[in-house]
């Protein structure tokens, strides 16, 4: 069954269909969303299975050939991102289904399914213009999600995010136009062969990279990230920091790995690495000062984007595996932390740093989740974060550039600086334990399961590594 049916296209069609149907049939929106999610998960699993067994799987949309037609290709990296979106996304959306329905839940589910479809499409597209389209769709869905609760500060943050993303995408489109003018093709592999080192293609690469850095929130272009993540509802922030924030990075990696492999490890790549390192320190230092839990996690996400960009100056297979691992484990850990923060915020009423005091023994699962996810953020073994830190540091040292390894390890230290104050609340003396409002029981379970995913990533890295091998750089 799996050989013939094009699971790869179903991974996009299923959530899209689910989204449109649940908009049309408003009353039954939640069950439709559940069915659509299930279908998507099945197709994602099948696709990943195909990729794991048969290597890269591709299918041309509408049977049009490469130079012009849009081909969907699921290689190792694509499959890994599909899996990440397929695991973290639904778990977070479970929280919305759990809440007793209502228009807001419906709106959230629709937007999430729409975002999921565009994310899957982005992971699978092997066509530069198609990447532009999918990254735009992801942005629109993300903005929709940010403003889903019509809160004034969320609206302002969403607007700012939209404007900046649009500018970034247009920079990227200008690059695509220049590439097309130079090589008359849009497929990444063909582009990789036809691109010649001349000013037009360098300008294209510079434009596209600048645009995507702005959309990814690389320091110093990260100004939009904290407002967006703190004002949005925690579930949305979980999706934003975990999944949607990685979309521009996926495009950037496709660009640099398949179209411009030569410039990996070059001067520009070292600039990106330097900005990544700056991001790690900038984000961590500001997270140390942050007084609100969501702001701490927002700056932590800025820092983790920095880790992702350390791949470019190294460019080796080890660095590639490390960066991919950072992406996956941060997705799970950050989402879990945001969900835990939601439980704390819902129970105590505010998300100030000392909100965790006196809550631990009445919300034990939340604090276990905070602990496990915190371990992954800090990169302490046996979590996924540690494997990522290990791979990156080892890749850096194998190339002899020990300073990247120092950055990675120092980053881990700084992250311990802002994670432990959160955990310390569990042991703080509570003079009078505050009366806790009813918190959603299943939100705790979602948070815990995400944290366990982050931990599991640290225990069974081998199979995931095999998947990564199929990526271009292996």
């Amino acid at each position: 069954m799996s050989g013939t049916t094009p699971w790869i296209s179903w991974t996009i069609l299923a959530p899209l269909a689910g989204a449109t149907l649940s908009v049309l049939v408003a009353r039954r929106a939640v069950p439709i969303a559940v069915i659509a999610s299930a279908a998507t998960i099945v197709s994602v699993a099948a696709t990943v299975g195909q990729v794991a067994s048969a290597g890269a799987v591709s299918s041309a949309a509408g049977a049009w050939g490469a130079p012009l037609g849009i081909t969907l290709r699921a290689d190792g990296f694509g499959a890994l991102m599909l899996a990440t979106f397929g695991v973290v996304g639904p778990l977070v959306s479970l929280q919305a289904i759990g809440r007793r329905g209502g228009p807001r839940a419906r709106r959230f589910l629709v937007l999430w399914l729409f975002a999921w479809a565009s994310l899957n499409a982005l992971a699978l597209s092997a066509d530069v213009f198609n990447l532009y389209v999918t990254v735009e769709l992801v942005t629109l869905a993300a903005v929709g999600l940010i403003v889903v609760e019509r809160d004034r500060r969320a609206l302002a943050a969403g607007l700012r995010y939209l404007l900046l993303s649009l500018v970034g995408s247009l920079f990227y489109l200008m690059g695509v136009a220049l590439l097309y003018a130079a090589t008359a093709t849009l497929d990444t592999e063909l582009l990789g062969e036809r691109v010649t080192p001349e000013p037009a293609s360098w300008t294209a690469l510079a434009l596209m990279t600048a645009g995507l850095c702005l959309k990814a929130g690389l320091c110093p272009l990260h100004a939009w990230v904290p407002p967006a993540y703190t004002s949005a509802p925690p579930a949305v922030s979980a999706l934003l920091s975990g999944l949607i924030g990685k979309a521009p990075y996926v495009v950037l990696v496709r660009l640099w790995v398949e179209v411009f492999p030569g410039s990996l490890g070059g001067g520009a790549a070292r600039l990106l690495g330097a900005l990544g390192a700056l991001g790690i320190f900038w984000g961590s230092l500001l997270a140390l000062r942050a007084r609100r839990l969501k702001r701490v996690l927002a700056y932590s996400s800025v820092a983790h984007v920095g880790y992702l960009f350390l791949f470019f100056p190294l460019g080796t297979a080890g660095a590639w595996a490390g960066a991919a691992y950072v992406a996956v484990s941060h997705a799970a850990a950050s989402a879990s932390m945001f969900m835990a923060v939601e439980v704390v915020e819902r129970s105590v009423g505010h998300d100030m740093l000392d909100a965790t005091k006196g809550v631990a023994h009445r919300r034990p699962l939340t604090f276990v989740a905070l602990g496990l996810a915190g371990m992954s953020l800090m990169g302490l073994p046996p979590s996924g974060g540690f494997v990522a830190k290990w791979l990156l540091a080892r890749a850096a040292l194998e190339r002899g550039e020990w300073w990247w390894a120092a950055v990675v390890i120092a980053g881990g230290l700084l992250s311990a600086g802002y994670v432990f104050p959160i955990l310390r609340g569990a042991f703080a003396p509570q003079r009078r334990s505050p009366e806790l409002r009813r918190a959603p029981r299943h939100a705790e379970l979602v948070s815990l399961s995400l944290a366990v995913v982050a931990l599991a990533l640290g225990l069974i890295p081998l199979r995931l590594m095999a998947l990564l091998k199929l990526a271009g750089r292996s």
Partner: protein
Amino acid sequence: MSVWMLYGAAAIGVFSAGVFGAFGATTHVVRRVLGVNIMGGGVFLLLVASARRAPSAIPDPVPHALVLTGIVISVSATALAMAIARALSVTRERDSPAPPRDEPPR
């Protein structure tokens, strides 16, 4: 060759005008959205210009398709931006009748 170059330069010019507009020292949201649309216009001009580089050859249809998709996306994005701006101004009226500004909350 020179005609194409002319169009290319024009496209770059429009694009940078758009960038200047989007990031200009304005406070009004609509000006920024217009700036973004102009940037889009610049890109689409370049795409169309690249359709027929060699004077004699038949114009290549692909850029036109790209431009069409680009226009669809920028229209929907602009619509979303306008909707949010309006929602923002409505909520701001309710709280404080100041003109719509887009500085984010500190």
